[in-house]
């Protein structure tokens, strides 16, 4: 039953990006994503971002994200297991912070 595979409570691909782009573009930006899950949103903007640091506390989700990252050959995303508490207080500044379904 192929239709069942399309069932999702999340917005269709592209909708969140259109809403985000009403405020800022992510192109060529350094992005911090908090609560990235399996990278569902991350992979929509990462190909045009400068770099992405993406956190999620769920190990299984991060492992899925890493698998998909390898398959998509996207190299500018650093997926990390953890929460924003694991973000060093100092370091290069980000242009955009995304709390995607995580606040």
């Amino acid at each position, binding site marked *: 039953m192929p239709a069942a595979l399309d069932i999702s409570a999340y917005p269709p691909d592209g909708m*969140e990006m259109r809403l*985000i782009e009403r405020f*800022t573009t992510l192109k060529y930006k350094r992005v*911090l994503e908090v609560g990235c899950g399996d990278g569902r949103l991350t992979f929509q903007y990462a190909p045009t971002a400068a770099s992405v640091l993406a956190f999620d506390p769920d190990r299984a989700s991060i492992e899925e994200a890493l698998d998909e990252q390898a398959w998509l050959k996207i190299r500018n995303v650093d997926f990390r297991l953890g929460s924003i508490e694991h973000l060093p207080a100092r370091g290069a500044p980000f242009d955009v*912070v995304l709390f*995607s379904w995580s606040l």
Partner: protein
Amino acid sequence: MVHALRRAGQRLRPGGILISIRPHRTWRPLVSIVTPSRRVSVARLINSAFDSRLSAAEAALARVVEDGQFTLAGIRNHRYRARLDNPSQVRTYLELINPPRPRFPAGRRAHLFELWGSRPRGSHIEIEESIVVTALRRP
């Protein structure tokens, strides 16, 4: 949540944008049966455990603006619909949501089955979800 926003703000450049995407707190998911001629509302899903988190998120966003760490750049609300072929897919839809999951109010799932049993040919089920996007700017 305030701490998380402050922590993020520490690493955001001046003029940078913080975006929060989350379910709308009051526009709860609406389940409807859509026939070829009309839309019949069945239930608004409830999720009391999650509602308190959404209230806390809103309060945290307001707090960091009040504190002067951010300014409000804007808020956008948006709705979208998921089309489902039958009540079994409604169950799957709900199971795919990370806990705490929404649920039907008492008696409304039975109402869905009742209406679905007498549906006209060509009907389907829709769940309308609502999200809110809040953008804050670091001064």
